[in-house]
């Protein structure tokens, strides 16, 4: 009975994490964490510094492997058996907490590198940008702006612009699941609002997991919130619900 329900949960999820733990030198950064993301869902994750949010993303994307527990993508792909490049090609895109773009390449070249296609050494040597690819990049420019800075070195962008470019890199990749770590940091209010609209717009076609400290931003997403604390889920529900949860208040005030 129990088993059956877990299985159906796994089947309904695009991302399924169950009983996942990860320690660093005995310190449990992730502690028996279970999390399910439905296809097309937009999920916000909050939690105090050191709650394990980034570590969770490291585990999903193959940067780290869990000590125990299961992580499945599209119910049958065991992510713990794949590395970062594999996982990216399976359809999981990631934005880092610290905006990470290829600084000495231009904005355009950053997006071009992310275009879907064969990733082999010799394919890259012979690669020629086709009209389809150009179109895709144009589409993404329409979404993230920055079109005017297409030929600028990515390293010359402002912090918020780098955030937008990195989101653009994700969009070009067109992954089924986007993991977005603190995207609003360093963005102007206007940029933040645009970002929130963007994430709301792409849910449905994509599943999105977004980690953020900015509560206004989370509120604007208007979606289910999961609170992480000391490596496991502390509470879940709407933002109002979790904000009224006593333990959540304690955790946030107690620090």
């Amino acid at each position, binding site marked *: 009975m129990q088993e059956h329900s877990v299985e159906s949960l796994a089947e309904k999820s695009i991302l399924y994490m169950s009983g996942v733990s990860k320690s660093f030198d005995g310190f449990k950064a992730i502690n028996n964490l279970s999390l399910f993301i439905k296809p097309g869902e937009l999920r916000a994750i909050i939690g105090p510094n050191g709650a394990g949010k980034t570590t969770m993303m490291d585990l999903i994307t193959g940067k780290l492997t869990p000590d125990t527990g299961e992580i499945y993508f599209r119910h049958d792909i065991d992510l713990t058996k794949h590395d*970062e490049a594999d996982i990216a090609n399976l359809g999981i895109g990631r934005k880092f907490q610290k905006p990470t*773009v290829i600084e*000495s390449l231009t904005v355009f070249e950053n997006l071009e590198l992310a275009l879907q296609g064969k990733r082999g050494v010799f394919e890259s*040597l012979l690669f020629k940008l086709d009209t389809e690819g150009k179109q895709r990049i144009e589409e993404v420019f329409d979404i993230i702006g920055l079109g005017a800075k297409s030929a600028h070195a990515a390293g010359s962008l402002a912090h918020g612009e780098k955030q937008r470019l990195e989101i653009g890199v994700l969009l070009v990749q067109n992954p089924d699941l986007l993991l977005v770590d603190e995207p609003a940091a360093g963005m102007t209010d206007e940029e933040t609002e645009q970002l929130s609209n963007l994430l709301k717009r792409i849910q449905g076609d994509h599943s999105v997991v977004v980690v953020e400290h900015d509560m206004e931003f989370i509120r604007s997403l208007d979606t289910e919130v999961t609170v992480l604390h000391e490596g496991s889920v502390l509470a879940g529900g709407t933002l109002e619900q979790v904000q009224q949860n006593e333990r959540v208040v304690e955790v946030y005030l107690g620090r």
Partner: protein
Amino acid sequence: MKNGLINTLLKDDKASQRFILILMAVSILVPILNLLVPESWPIHVSTYTVTLLGKYLCFALLALAVDLIWGYCGILSLGHGAFFALGGYAMGMYLMRQIGDRGVYGNPELPDFMVFLNWQELPWYWYGFDNFGFAMLMVLLVPGLLAFVFGWFAFRSRVTGVYLSIITQAMTYALMLAFFRNEMGFGGNNGLTDFKDILGFDLQSDYTRCTLFFLTALSLALAYLACIGIVKSKLGRVLVAIRDAESRTRFMGYRVEHYKLFVFVFSAVLAGIAGAFYVPQVGIINPGEFTPINSIEIIIWVAIGGRGTLYGAVIGAILVNYGKTWFTGAFPELWLFMLGGLFVVATIYLPQGIKGLFDKWQSRQNTATPTAGA
């Protein structure tokens, strides 16, 4: 077709166009000035100078190889001297076999040093080296294979940065110790020398010297074009991505280890070719070529010339080695200090090397005459 390819490679790249032109001009002029101009004329280039220039071009090719991996992909190899030396040894073995029975001991089967060591027969790994084609294959294969095996383990285990640099130093040091041993069968600390001819041409003749010089310049030009082809393709942009943000590149779905392995092996093969041209021109190869300092010197050439530009590496290698020739003549004991000083000055004041100086000078010229075109 071929011209078309070269044209697209060099399109909108003034610096490279100029570089290739100068190189080709030098490769033709120097032999002419040596062979056709009488010695009494002031513009005559002596055979000694031809050989010296040929040696510089070998170093330039080696620097190019290092710049490709360090400048573009961030792989700081401090062991590239090893690939250079291995290519040199492969060529040296062929040249030894060419000596035949003209050695001091007159043994038609064995090189002198083996006779001296009382060896009865040729070790198996010397088989085939009397064939030029086979030896040239080994010039490419031996460094390439070593780089492949080394890179396979290092890049898969994600050894990067200082750790990678240290193990490359260890690699060249270990090879040096091995090649110093007489039992290895490569001539011990004397190495391979006393070469007579190559493909039947007398190595001492001016014509052979000039041909070697010309071929070295030609290889440098071809290698340069190949490197340009790599760095201007998307492959080159992936390399830069790996240099700037390795993690990001992985999360874009690129297998970083494959890219590093490819470019590392390619670079090692170029280094091997450089070594193969070096040996017949200088007339000797010995285990000293494996010394870790040599590999560090290459890095200094590239840094002084300007990392990540390819032609900067070539300029750096030529200028520093010219300086070395001059300095070791005038104040031999000061050279290492001089080199270290240059490196410090370059890193502090010229982060983009001599190439950066050119750029500054050029942009100043451009701003000085803004209305010229209008």
